[in-house]
């Protein structure tokens, strides 16, 4: 046995190879980071740089952009389309697409509208029916995809039209329905904020969760004779996270506070990210996105992966539709049309999830939607029309796709495609 453990007792199993560049201290960590970025392993870096630029520019043009009041609005605006974007991320990870998320959200809004008014359902029933419609659409998509091998691009394009038709059919002559203002979902979307004290505690809980998972991970790794990583790094990240989150809460609490819909989005992102990284299901999603043939030969049941991903995407689109209906306290024939589709799909891509499959994470939905809504919000503050807003968002999307493609090419050139 020429094991690393045998040659050097001080080294752990995974640090035994002499070719490994050992990273110790700040300067080496920084240098390795720069090297990785230059090799095309950019992750969410462009988006963070982009976000700082966008916030800086808009703030320069209109000083009320970064006010507590406006950021509270911005956070709430992100929630509905952000939830849809999380579903889009899942579909993109298996190198497929769902172009009908906008229509699906519109259908869910109109089911909610009709359900609460003329059908006289209770709110839970209306929500369940709307979400069930999302599940059904996802099942149909995945059935057609798995059974007939039609590209998802075409399936969901057909779905976009068919679901839009269904939405118009359901709304019928009404055209637009106002939801009862006292309805719980309207209250949740418009008036639900986390109490100040609770928000500080929640931020602390998130950081404590991070520290705990890291410490447990380090302990498991030491038990398995693997290098455990540095405690300093964990503590530093935790402190930065704590300061950032508490400051964010404090700043938002100067106005109305942290809105519950935004908390819902953040929790959803954390849960989906955890499922993608730590479960067998998540592993198979990335595997299918990397190489369908390899996944099939490894014994992964492809149909299960596709069904789960399409169903989750449509259902989250339906949830997003319910949320936006609640926020506007209305459902109309224009719900889900226009920029919902573009926002959700663009958010996933701008956030750094690759269109080529297998690369990306749940956080890209959150980052991406914050960028898109910042642009929308900022341009509205600057009194610019939707015409300009569409053009600028389109330009940013184009830029994100170019960055994705260039990073891919750079990875190929560096032998890491």
């Amino acid at each position, binding site marked *: 046995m020429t094991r690393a453990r045998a040659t050097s007792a001080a080294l752990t199993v995974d640090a035994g190879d002499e070719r490994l560049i050992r990273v110790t201290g700040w300067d080496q960590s920084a240098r390795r980071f720069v090297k990785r970025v230059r090799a095309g392993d950019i992750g969410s870096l462009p988006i963070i740089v982009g976000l700082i630029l966008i916030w800086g520019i808009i703030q320069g043009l209109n000083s009320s952009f970064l006010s507590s009041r406006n950021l509270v609005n911005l956070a709430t605006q992100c929630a509905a389309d952000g939830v849809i974007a999380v579903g889009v991320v899942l579909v993109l990870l298996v190198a497929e697409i769902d172009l009908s998320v906008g229509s699906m959200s519109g259908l869910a809004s109109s089911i909610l509208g009709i359900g609460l008014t003329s059908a006289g359902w209770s709110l839970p029933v209306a929500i369940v029916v709307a979400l069930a419609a999302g599940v059904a659409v996802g099942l149909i998509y995945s059935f057609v995809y798995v059974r007939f091998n039609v590209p998802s691009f075409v399936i969901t394009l057909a779905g976009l039209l068919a679901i839009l038709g269904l939405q118009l059919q359901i709304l019928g002559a009404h055209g637009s329905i106002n939801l009862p203002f006292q309805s719980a979902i309207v209250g949740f979307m418009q008036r639900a904020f986390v109490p100040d004290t609770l928000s500080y505690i929640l931020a602390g809980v998130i950081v404590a969760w991070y520290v705990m998972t890291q410490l447990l991970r380090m302990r498991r790794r030491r038990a398995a004779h693997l290098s455990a990583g540095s405690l300093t790094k964990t503590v530093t990240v935790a402190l930065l996270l704590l300061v950032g989150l508490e400051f964010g809460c404090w700043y938002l609490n100067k106005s109305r506070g942290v809105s519950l819909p935004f908390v819902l989005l953040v929790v959803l992102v954390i849960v989906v990210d955890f499922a993608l990284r730590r479960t067998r299901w998540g592993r198979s999603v990335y595997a299918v996105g990397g190489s369908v043939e*390899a996944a099939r030969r490894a014994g992964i049941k492809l149909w299960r992966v596709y069904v789960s991903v399409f169903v989750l995407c449509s259902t989250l689109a339906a949830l997003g539709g319910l949320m936006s209906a609640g926020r506007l306290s209305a459902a109309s024939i224009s719900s889900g049309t226009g920029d919902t589709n573009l926002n959700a799909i663009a958010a996933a891509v701008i956030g750094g999830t690759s269109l080529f499959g297998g690369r990306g994470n749940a956080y890209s939905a959150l980052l991406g939607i914050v960028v898109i809504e910042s642009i929308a919000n900022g341009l509205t503050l600057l009194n610019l029309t939707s015409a300009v807003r569409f053009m600028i968002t389109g330009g940013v999307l184009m830029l994100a796709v170019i960055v994705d493609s260039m990073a891919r090419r750079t990875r190929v050139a560096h032998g890491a495609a």
Partner: protein
Amino acid sequence: MPQTEAATSQKPHVGAVLSLRGVSKSFGAVRALSDVDLDVKRGEVTALLGDNGAGKSTLVKILAGVHPADSGAIEFDGREVVISSPTAARNLGIATVYQDLALCDNLDVVANLFLGREDGGLLLSEERMEERAWDLLGQLSAKIPSVRTAVAGLSGGQRQTVAIARSLVGDPAVVILDEPTAALGVAQTAEVLNLIERLRDRGHAVLLITHNMADVAAVADRAVVLRLGRNNGEFRIAETTSEEIVAAITGAVDNTVTRRASRTRHQASEEEPS
């Protein structure tokens, strides 16, 4: 080879773990395999040789469970078995490393090694898998600097190593390697040949499908030659010259290949084991 021997033998190095008798397979009007016999033994490297269209790939696909055989018997550890799917082959203990390796470029080495067979219950136990990965790679003396790098960043030989190591995860009795050195450079080929010897020393039965006579001479114990879908000779490498095997592959004693070989005989004879 009497079949009773395979049935009674439990010890490695004796008897065939996998025996094919009279296996035939047709695709439409083409008989790809007719009455083919093959024995694969533990602790031995069996080379499966043949020209293009000789039926090597068809035979591998039958063993890997991709296609069912039309007729004939397959015995595994003395029991007659039906290999109906790739999963059935894997559960039986037959692992196949395909020429294209079938790795997920975006996943790291650990994820690829255990893909479809991850450790852990509800949550993956990454640390256990990583520890097992180092253990496995250590046993193969594999030179992979880090198991947490994406497979995309590895060299051809390292990727081949990962693919072979992956085939060993279920501790299979038989490992089938389809042209493992076809796309590799000189040093990397040598590394993979070392790996094949280590598989043999671990007691696996190795079936090596190759075109490369140098590889056969280097690591194989036995060579089974297919020609036009039929058995065309079985040779013990230590007692055979390359020309005899080439003759069996091409089906002629006097042809361009043997004439060329005899011109360079003095070189070849230096390489022969004495």
